[in-house]
């Protein structure tokens, strides 16, 4: 053990000098000083299957044996660096190649097909994973006034993917001017006040862009903790007057190509444009008493106002915490949040909000890489991501090469861009009744976990695993089947089979109890398919698999 540790440290130090960063995180090995806590290198023997597996559950839509070996081979940091350069997989081009949908529902199903194509088979796994996280922070939804515009939603999602590693200020401006967002939060068509008619600017986007997309409701310290006043009360980040000022900023915008402000073109694929005559030109008092002078153009007001938001001190901890929660753990320590927020503030090259650097920091942080030591670590994996993990590791596909799954939300309580409201499927501060709440901790994904939904997830996984696998004899052209050939090959070796499935789904981190139950259940079957399906089912529906430790 001593020798092994020494070797690890030596290699790590060598890497530090040669690559200027990185490090290692062998189990029980403290990260080297100055290192990111992750990393590894071309010949680094440190990363175990379990460690690579856990990393890929954080950084992708599910580990596959190939990616696990790749991470072990090149190390965490190099894997991330490669991912940062991977070209983006988009939805719209794919949808454009499909036959014209007959109705909006079919169009929405095509949109989900595009999403599944990219998250299951796209090489840009990290980018897609971050885009999905962003889609749950900067939310639009097809539930409501975007239902008839699947292409508009896809365009929005593509913007999230394109900007997943861009700078946050650029991302915020892009989403602000995307027509789907404009329509969803009614900035599109919002016009200057008409006092005679008691018409005032719409406050919808003004409110939510601050409350949900950037700074939140109360002043935060850099480590994400709430600033309290002398009465022990939180300090609001803004008041109603500031919302109204931003509502005035966001006036005058509509679809590109509109003949007139009130004759919308419904062109969703180009950023919104301004009609100055409908823009309020009055003075506006924004956050921190910054004043926009009267008489500015809609474009100048927008740029200045978004700059006012993105420069607010809350943005780094507010966004960093939520990204950590989406990728790594429900309850990041204040130090973890601060380390990420520091990179958000300055990526080392003077850039604020470099999301690529932020994501890399989140994933290489010691808190993400070190072996979990207490029972509050990690998070409940989002239900839909349990499905993608299973589909990825068992190479799910349909003969038609489509992923036609119209209503994932029925079984998984979520689907891409399909939340009930701008408040997403769950809130970052949700705590269920019981020990989590009593400890002052949160478990956001528990908000969509109840006695109904937990069963529905289980039932869908049972369907996929027992009835939609490669040994089914009469296949449907559009049904998605998992490939269990590798498991069938060892179906007569119970221990080997259980261990292989446990490695695929849990990185080998299976409890003795679950292993025993899996073995006992699968051995009830005579058929090879039965043995394999039962093994996968037992592990895939266990509360162990549901949690990313």
């Amino acid at each position, binding site marked *: 053990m001593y020798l092994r540790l020494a070797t690890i440290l030596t290699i790590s130090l060598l890497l530090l000098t040669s690559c200027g960063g990185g490090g290692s995180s062998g189990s029980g090995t403290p990260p080297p000083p100055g290192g990111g806590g992750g990393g590894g290198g071309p010949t680094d023997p440190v990363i175990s299957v379990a460690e690579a597996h856990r990393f890929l559950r954080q950084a992708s839509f599910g580990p596959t044996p190939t990616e696990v070996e790749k991470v072990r081979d090149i190390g965490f940091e190099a894997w991330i660096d490669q991912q940062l350069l991977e070209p983006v997989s988009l939805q719209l081009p794919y949808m454009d190649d499909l036959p014209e949908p007959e109705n909006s529902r079919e169009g929405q199903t095509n949109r989900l097909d595009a999403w599944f194509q990219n998250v299951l088979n796209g090489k840009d796994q990290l980018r897609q994973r971050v885009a999905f996280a962003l889609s749950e922070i900067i939310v639009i939804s097809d539930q409501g006034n975007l239902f008839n515009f699947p292409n508009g939603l896809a365009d929005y999602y593509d913007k999230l993917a394109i900007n997943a590693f861009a700078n946050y200020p650029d991302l915020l401006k892009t989403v602000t001017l995307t027509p789907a967002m404009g329509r969803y939060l009614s900035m599109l068509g919002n016009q200057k006040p008409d006092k005679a008619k008691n018409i*005032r600017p719409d406050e919808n986007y003004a409110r939510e862009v601050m409350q949900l997309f950037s700074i939140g409701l109360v002043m935060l310290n850099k480590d994400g903790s709430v600033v309290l006043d002398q009465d022990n009360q939180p300090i609001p980040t803004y008041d109603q007057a500031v919302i109204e000022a931003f509502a005035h900023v966001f006036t005058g915008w509509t679809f590109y190509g509109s003949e007139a402000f009130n004759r919308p073109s419904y062109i969703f694929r180009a950023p919104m444009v301004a009609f100055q005559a409908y823009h309020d030109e009055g003075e506006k008092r924004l956050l921190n008493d910054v004043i926009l002078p009267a008489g500015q153009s809609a474009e100048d007001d927008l740029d200045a106002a978004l700059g006012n938001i993105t420069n607010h001190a809350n943005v780094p901890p507010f966004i960093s915490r939520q990204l950590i929660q989406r990728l790594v753990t429900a309850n990041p320590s204040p130090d973890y949040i601060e380390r990420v927020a520091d990179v958000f503030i300055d990526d080392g090259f003077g850039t604020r909000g470099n999301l690529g650097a932020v994501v890399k920091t989140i994933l290489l942080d010691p808190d993400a890489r070190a072996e979990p030591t207490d029972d509050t670590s990690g998070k409940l994996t989002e239900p839909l991501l349990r499905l993608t993990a299973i589909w990825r590791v068992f190479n799910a596909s349909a003969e038609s090469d489509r992923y036609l799954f119209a209503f994932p939300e029925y079984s998984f309580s979520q689907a891409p861009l399909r939340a009930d409201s701008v408040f997403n499927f769950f809130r970052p501060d949700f705590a269920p009744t019981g020990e989590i709440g009593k400890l002052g901790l949160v478990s956001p994904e528990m908000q969509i*976990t109840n006695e109904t939904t937990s069963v529905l997830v289980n039932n869908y996984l049972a369907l996929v695993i027992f009835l939609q696998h490669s040994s089914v004899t009469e296949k449907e052209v559009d049904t998605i089947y998992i490939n269990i050939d590798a498991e069938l090959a060892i179906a007569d070796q119970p221990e080997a089979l259980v261990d292989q499935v446990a490695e695929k789904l849990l990185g080998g981190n299976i409890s003795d109890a679950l292993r025993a139950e899996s073995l006992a259940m699968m051995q009830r079957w005579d058929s090879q398919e039965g043995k394999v399906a039962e093994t996968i089912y037992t592990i895939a529906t266990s509360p162990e698999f549901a949690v990313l430790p």
Partner: protein
Amino acid sequence: MHRRDFLKLSAALSALGLIGGPGMIPAARSADFSDYKCLVNVFLLGGNDSFNMLVPRSDAEYSIYAASRQNLAIPQGDLLPISPLNSDGSLYGLHPMASGLQSLFETGDLAIVSNVGPLLEPTSKDDYLNGTTNLPPQLFSHNDQQNQWQSLRGTHSLSTGWAGRIADLLAEDLSGQLLPTNISTSGNSRFQAAETSSPYTVNNNGASSYAAFRRGAEFGVERRASFEQQLANGYGNIHSRALAEVHTRSLQYADLVNEALTLVPELNTAFPDTRLGRRLRIVARLLAVKDEFEVNRQIFYITAIGFDTHDNQNQDQPNLLLDLGDCLQAFQTAMAEIGLENQVTTFTQSDFGRNLTSNGDGTDHGWGAHQLVSGGAVMGRQIYGTMPVLEIDGPDDVAGGRVIPTQSADQYAATLATWFGIPESNLNEIAPSLPAFNLRNLGFMT
């Protein structure tokens, strides 16, 4: 929050055991819970524009309303007239699509509680503008104000909801119930969050049951036993344990619920085939077989969506109010069908009212709003509380057409809780801001 008032309130709450260490809830109860009562919370997500739901018909008041609402105003002649037993001298009407509400009101099964909202103490416009009053934090924000209505937390970091606190408070009295006191058709809510009494969620047809555990499924019985063994073994991570607790309740209650529902597969009363209608229908069916659950007190939570009418209000609101009226009317009819019309009380809550001005084709977030209470135990066909003056910059408008509530969400909840059987001595735990108000009961319940 002003320090002196905060300290005063803190001391009061602390004395009640509401904040501060363990030993939270005093045990002084003398009520009898051997009868049956049920509360049904229909939460209108997004913020119902109730100032277009109940509208003055008298010329003077209508013209003020129409001047404020402009292109969103309901034409005076289209309003459905109502004839309240009490009168403030004005005539009132309901939205033309709310015929279900009109019918419930006129037959005495519906009361309207006027201009309710989250408040920490009675608040005048001057108080608000001069900052001389304590206010609930984050007024006009959706999730914060939903949280206020559901938790009544005021400025305290209270993670429980008022239905959750009722369930905890009555846990001992109701320990013989075979189902949790709180049941949701709409997933998890702050309203039903408790210290210890976990709520229970059903779907539109009853309890979800595990396909893989069915008796007909190969090894279904063994698979269930295996899963139960896993759950019993426990988990080394809090998130796994939380999920396991949910599964444990699913397994515990599903058969009971579904077998009971086979006794009453269908009611005679037809419900609208809408999201809200389907949810109210399953509540009605569960109530029809309530004896199977040996329950004396139940609280249901149901959400209706779509009320955040920032745009297209003139197109969307008619359907919302049509559906709401038809659904509440069907539910009341169903309660009469199963003989529970006097034991089940349905009430609305919503994020907030909407502001009186138009943003072109919709409305923004307001504060006070009218709420609906229906059932045989309601002193119906009355409007409770003072109707606000619907005038921009008028006496009830704090700015931009946001109307100050004149009755608090705490008073509203306390009135319902009192009917439910919560003793007077426990009301302040349920509604923490109640001590700030003279009137502890708004009088709309028998």
